[in-house]
């Protein structure tokens, strides 16, 4: 996993609530046995009118060239539905490093963090402020200080992340490395089981 410390970028505003994982990556694209290449099909059915990718839906935000950046901003309850980690893989593969929302579904949040993608939860007020910004506005995210700032106005908000996960993100560690380092404790626990 790559470390994630500091991001300054324009963002893509996806002003929709309950963006579920079936929209992020439809089930028919889950047949792969590797983690690569899912970005191509990110929001597939919102991006294209047809199955052959010849007719992009021009009104969909990812198809508007004036919007770009490594931060995706979505409405509340982002990532609801299926546990498919493919949703996080698709977002990362497309090039995003952070997803901002006022509320994340549980499993998606874990999946994102396990792939070095920061699910950054802001207040509903702050989210609406971001949605009102123009397309050239930038956000700055400092993982260590746990702050997200609107560059043009200086308005900022603190976000929550537990200190364990923060350390993982800042250093690019993953949970499996951590758990393996706890082998002795796990074995001791197992010994107590009947």
């Amino acid at each position, binding site marked *: 996993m790559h470390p994630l410390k500091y991001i300054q970028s324009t963002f893509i505003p996806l002003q929709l609530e309950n963006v579920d994982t079936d929209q992020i990556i439809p089930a028919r694209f889950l047949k792969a046995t590797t983690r690569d290449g899912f970005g191509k099909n990110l929001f597939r059915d919102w991006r294209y009118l047809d199955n052959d990718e010849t007719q992009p839906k021009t009104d969909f935000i990812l198809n508007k060239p004036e919007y770009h950046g490594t931060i995706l901003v979505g409405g509340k309850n982002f990532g609801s539905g299926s546990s498919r980690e493919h949703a996080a893989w698709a977002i990362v593969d497309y090039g995003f490093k952070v997803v901002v929302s006022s509320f994340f579904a549980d499993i998606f949040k874990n999946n994102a963090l396990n792939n070095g993608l920061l699910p950054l939860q802001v207040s509903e007020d702050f989210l609406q402020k971001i949605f009102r910004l123009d397309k050239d506005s930038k956000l700055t995210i400092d993982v260590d200080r746990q702050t997200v700032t609107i560059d043009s106005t200086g308005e900022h908000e603190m976000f929550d992340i537990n200190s364990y996960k923060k350390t993982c993100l800042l250093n690019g560690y*993953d949970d499996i490395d*951590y758990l393996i380092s706890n082998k002795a404790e*796990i074995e001791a626990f197992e010994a107590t089981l009947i």
Partner: protein
Amino acid sequence: MGKTLFEKIWEKHLVKTIPGGPDVIYIDKHFIHEVTSPQAFAGIEKRGLKILHPEKIVATADHNVPTINQDLPIKDLLSRLQIEQLVQNCKNHNIELYGLGHPFQGIVHVIGPELGITQPGMTIVCGDSHTSTHGAFGSIAFGIGTSEVEMVFATQCILQSRPKVMRININGELNKGVVSKDIILYILSKISASGATGYFVEFAGSTILALSMEARMTICNMSIEMGAKGGMIAPDETTFKYIRNRRFAPVGGKWISKLDEWKKLYSDKDAIFDKEININANDIEPMITYGTNPGLGISINDKIPETESIVDEGEKKNIIKGLKYMGLQPGQFLKGMAVQNVFIGSCTNSRIEDLRLVANVIKGKKKNQNVKVMIVPGSQQVAAQIVAEGLDIIFKEAGFEIRQAGCSACLGMNDDKIPSGEYCISTSNRNFEGRQGAGARTMLASPLTAAAAAITGVVTDVRELLN
């Protein structure tokens, strides 16, 4: 202070708490399937690790399997490769696989309980959000991502932040024509598709106690649809009776000691929940959804709510977008509307009791000629049972198409898809855009309501057929 059922099980499986971080939780049973496991196998192989406890894992192929001609090679190349990969991975790592052709094969959340693998007090995970189903037995069961599957492979543990605990009490007798699917769709309509995010939910009350195990599974299955980490129900005599004598149920002295342990699994009287919700069973009528998330449901005789009255702008925008996708209008009645498809299946409603409910409604009747009806048993064992009970004859005489076990049109990963623009009354769990196929319009309902629509060809209050 007393403890909740959730706390009792969580604490028993707590290996350690990371200061300022999540808990390390020990996992008793790990189910896997073909879609969310291959990258986890590749992951541990890349790290040069072995699976710590292959004997605690059970695998099946369900999401991607065809539901016709399962004895023939799978036509879709990618599906075939994914399933072959599962077979190979299980072989390499010495994991029990109930794959295609095995008499125990089926939807992972159907086979776990029916084989007696799912038991009270366990911690259970699977790379599938509907793992919450197993909570019906008084276990902590939840869906995980593929990195977490890899974590459990490597260490039999998972890192999880401890969720808050909510109790939903449902009391009173159910109205005629109302079944457990209606209960959960009703709760969803009250608290929304994100109303339980951050919580583990215990369902309790006289209505729940009166339900069969299979009916309880339907409720816990859809607890994820309200955002909950999982759902659970304290085990009781109904639970113990269901498990006893199943293939992997404990026997002899082990059964007695387990039973003793299981009887202690309940929330203490003075246990404190972070949130409690009370529901009166009498208020629940047959439910149906109109929007594109499972929280958007109404009673079968109600109108779709007007959107002007919605205060929250974001919610309003979402509902309008959903209605447009569904080809529906605010203020419209669903009842009487023509449907082109009925899907009876999925980990929510494909068990024998669900299929008996359907058979009871349609016996001696024929399906409407404009409706395509697909009935997909949850497992090979359920499929065998419908034949043993003669239900297959009732379905065939009605013109229903009986398929072989799998997830099928719940998510349309195989060829079982609903055509674009058509309506489908579905006993499954998600009405998301494109879930049952690009452009498909899903209305979630109970097996009874689905059966009624199959006969009449329109959205119907099943009570009109039950007399």
